[in-house]
């Protein structure tokens, strides 16, 4: 069964089709969640929450080709919910430790970037994740974030610069910094 059929079934409330669809995109869902929350446990929570919220609302999805966009939107919302919750729970200085440069060396390159992305503000982070990781076109990001394309560009630009600073490559051009 192709994806479009599955989406049609899912919209009608078919659980199996819905689960199947999410399974098809499970890597992307998990990785995106991971980028936001930075650890496995929370990322799994985000995926679970997304599955729950999305299934409750799937009937409201009108255009099947927007399925993934719609799902991503929900995922991001859920990721921020987890982050918000965490902010309340985690004492502030733990975040500060994360920023000490020496500690970072041992971390995986990907995790390093995840850590840096976590420091970005919300629109920048969204723009970076959606553009660089999810490979979405600017129009798609604008749609998800509910902002004009040019604003997306601005967030991308600023977010990138911020990342460069965070990753210790301040003053260099992009290539040298992140590669």
């Amino acid at each position, binding site marked *: *069964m192709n994806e479009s059929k599955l989406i049609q079934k899912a919209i009608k409330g078919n659980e199996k089709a819905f689960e199947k669809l999410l399974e098809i995109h499970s890597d992307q869902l998990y990785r995106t969640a991971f980028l936001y929350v930075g650890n496995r446990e929370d990322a799994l929570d985000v*995926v679970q929450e997304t*599955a729950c919220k999305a299934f409750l609302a799937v009937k409201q999805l009108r255009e099947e080709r927007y399925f993934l966009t719609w799902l991503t939107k929900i995922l991001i919302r859920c990721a921020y919910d987890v982050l918000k919750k965490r902010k309340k729970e985690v004492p502030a200085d733990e975040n500060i430790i994360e920023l000490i440069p020496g500690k970072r060396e041992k971390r995986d390159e990907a995790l390093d970037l*995840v850590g840096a992305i976590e420091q970005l503000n919300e629109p920048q982070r969204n723009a970076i994740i959606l553009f660089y*990781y999810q490979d979405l076109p600017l129009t798609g990001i604008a749609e998800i974030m509910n902002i004009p394309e040019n604003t997306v560009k601005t967030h991308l630009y600023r977010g990138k610069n911020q990342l460069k600073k965070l990753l210790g490559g301040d003053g260099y051009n992009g290539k040298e910094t992140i590669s």
Partner: protein
Amino acid sequence: MEKKLFHDQYEKIEVPRDQVVQAIKTGVRRANSKKKLRKKRVIFISTAAAAGLFISSSFMFPSFSKVMADMPVVGYLYKDSVGEKLAAQKLITKLNETVSVKGIDVTVTSAYYDGAVMGVTFDVKGKVKTEKDGRIQGFYEIFNGDKTLGETKEVVYMNPTETGFTGKIQLSYPKAELPADTTFPLEFRSIGDKKGSWRFDVPVKQLPFETKAVNQERTREGMKVHFDSIITGQASTAVNYSFTHPKEGKYDDIRFEFFDDNGRPIHWLSDTSLEKNEKGNQVTIKGRTIIPQALKGKTRYIEVQPAVSLSEPNQFVSLTEAAPVRIQSSRQDLSVTIEKVSYNNKHFMVDFQINNGHKMGMYDMFYKDFARNDIILVKETRKDIFEEPIKHKVKVLNEKQLRFRSTFDISGLSHFSPQKYVLRVNLGSMAVNMPQEMEPVKINLE
């Protein structure tokens, strides 16, 4: 370059696949327990053009293989508790019939027929392409796809075993009369990546059961639900009912919640529409709800809480009309007030308030979605056609008062004029989620 690098790192994030799949399932199961008492329904749309397309499916309550995702036990997904209970009592008929197509053997291994529920188990052998998780997917049809019945086609997943794969199908018998001894046609159309026709006539014999007449009814706004009878099987209970509504309310829908004598909710498995009869202006639908347990002895009575959702036609607001314009349901307390309309050659802006600011128990997100999806600028000539809406943004003006502003991007429209466009307000999507409760009914089981 940078993009590739980001992407590579993205790929590096290790995915604990099993756990992710489990998270998805748990999420869906949670969603289900939140809406467990809501019926699985077809998409509700009420535009006239699209209505033609959907008339036949308005009674298509998916009745088959409704999974038991409501089970409060983790990992208990997709299990057939009726079948298991019957198996424990040795009430399942063993079968052994094999059909081979394209090197794939499908063997029907057992079947049961309890009250109004049927189940079939089957094994698959042969070279089949599996899904990522090791299961295989099959697609089947029952009753030769009889269009007068509800949904007759469904996907089924089969789990790997030592020798091949095994799967099961559960269905609610889709006809009003329950034959004591029958066969039902079952055809697999695809197994894994192979298409073909694996056909069976599955013999089933109804296990001993009891039927009790109920004869209680409730009415509300010209609608009537009559509880006809209750069938108690060995491991399942079926509630037969008739739902009568005026013809113009053909998208009206009835739902039930069930509770035991301690007020605890009873999960139901499926709800099927069996027959539809028209008499004058009245339409009566015979339906059946299956509860996957024998309730007799466990509770003295079941309390049923019926609720009807009253469908609403689309309503349109002419842009030349002076605001404010109030769109009001004639059947229930739902409304949208168009407060202000303005436009230039790039944007069309509309301010509106929903339900006079009364949330009526619904959450904010619900109204935001409604504001986004159901108050739409459409071309007058195409107002009944369901198509992608003009790109628009929704701004919350006042969350407490449910006031919103939608800004439509009309720069891409070649000939925008207020005479050619209208606002379409779909109160129906609100109505469908806000059913009107009737007085509860107690059905005595003793």
